[in-house]
């Protein structure tokens, strides 16, 4: 665990820095894949930029809306750099929505654009795991297995290590195109499906799972639902002709 690094008067939040590095390297993978798929890489980069900026702004506005009585009288507080005053779910939703609107207006091909995003997103998932390792978040359940790590006053499953390992495996599969995708969009669905499987498996070792009902972990239930949707989409989007051979 290494959450902060002090550099003179500056306090660097290492988990956040890791995510920024992940975003930067991930973007490189996205641009490379966009070129391979014959897409305009500048437009794909702009799509990510608008999605991110829109998502962050929406996350802050949603937080402010939740505490309207507070922010109504202090609107300049919206400009704070504090990451504790964001609503991530709202940010994710609006980020996707804004990126979708941009893609529609720029007439970007929907399925191919998703495919271009897959390797970069797979890399970003590794960095999310690393940021969890640095912050001590997404920690494991107490255990006595020999490979347990001592964290938060107990011996725990190294859930963050599992997360990094599975993300690395998925990244390798997606980047090397290990599983053929014979239609546009399938590479992206493969990434989402494999990530859902990893989440369902790893979540069982987490010590901080949100519980939906009767002891069922929310992330597992959501992961199963996503996996089911992926199976349907894999069947529906499949084409008979060999898509991979067309694009080389």
């Amino acid at each position, binding site marked *: 665990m290494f959450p902060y690094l002090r550099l003179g008067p500056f306090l660097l*939040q290492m988990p956040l820095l890791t995510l920024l590095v992940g975003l930067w390297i991930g973007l490189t993978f996205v641009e490379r894949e966009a070129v391979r798929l014959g897409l305009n890489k500048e437009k794909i980069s702009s799509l990510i930029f608008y999605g991110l900026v829109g998502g962050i702004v929406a996350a802050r506005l949603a937080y402010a809306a939740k505490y309207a009585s507070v922010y109504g009288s*202090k609107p300049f507080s919206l400009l*704070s750099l504090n990451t*504790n005053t964001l609503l991530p779910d709202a940010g994710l939703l609006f980020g996707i929505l804004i990126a979708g609107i941009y893609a529609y207006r720029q007439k970007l091909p929907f399925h191919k654009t998703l495919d271009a995003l897959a390797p970069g997103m797979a890399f970003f998932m590794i960095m999310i795991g690393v940021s969890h390792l640095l912050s001590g978040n997404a920690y494991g359940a107490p255990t006595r297995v020999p490979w347990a790590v001592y964290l938060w006053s107990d011996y725990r499953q190294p859930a963050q290590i599992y997360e990094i390992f599975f993300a690395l495996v998925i990244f390798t599969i997606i980047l090397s195109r290990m*599983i053929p995708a*014979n239609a546009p969009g399938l590479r992206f669905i493969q990434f989402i499906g494999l990530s859902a499987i990893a989440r369902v498996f790893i979540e069982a070792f987490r010590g901080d799972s949100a519980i939906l009902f009767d002891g069922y972990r929310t992330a597992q239930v959501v992961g199963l639902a996503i996996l089911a949707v992926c199976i349907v989409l894999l069947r529906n989007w499949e084409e008979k002709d060999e898509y991979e051979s067309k694009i080389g």
Partner: protein
Amino acid sequence: MNNSRFVTWMTWALVLGMVWTVISRVSPDQSRDQEDSVPKEGFTAPDFTLKLLDGGEVTLSELRGKVVLVNFWASWCPPCREEMPAIESVYGSYKDLGLVVIGANLTAQDSEQEAASFAKEVGVTFPIALDTDNMVGNFYRVTALPTSFFIDRKGVIRSVIVGGPMSEAVIQSKVEELLREGQ
């Protein structure tokens, strides 16, 4: 592996995932994390007793039932100085609704006189606690100043903000959320 085989493989993964989800359900005796005392969101705030600047003592566990903001600070720390009026302002507005603020001065890195002088200068009315040997600061893993812990009525840490200065809106939103829960 072609797409059809991959779909079959995913379908099996879905079935096994369902079984795994059922067998890895959280049993009631597993969800005990909040009983452990760790300076981390979701855990019970570690208890401490500290002497107060104006005399007397404060014990965190005796404040159960109230929303508590523990703010670690030092008088030489510019963001600590900057955010103190905002904390005082929020304390003034919400103390009657059940907010308690403990300004935990890291006296081992500061001085009692400097702390007192600064508190007087800002007009702080909430209790200033003196962590003279840095024991509480170490226990709370305070690696940077200021660091603030927002603790709910059950004594569980709900939010940790490292660094600052926090704006009044940030403090107010965190406090309001916790105060609302008890109503």
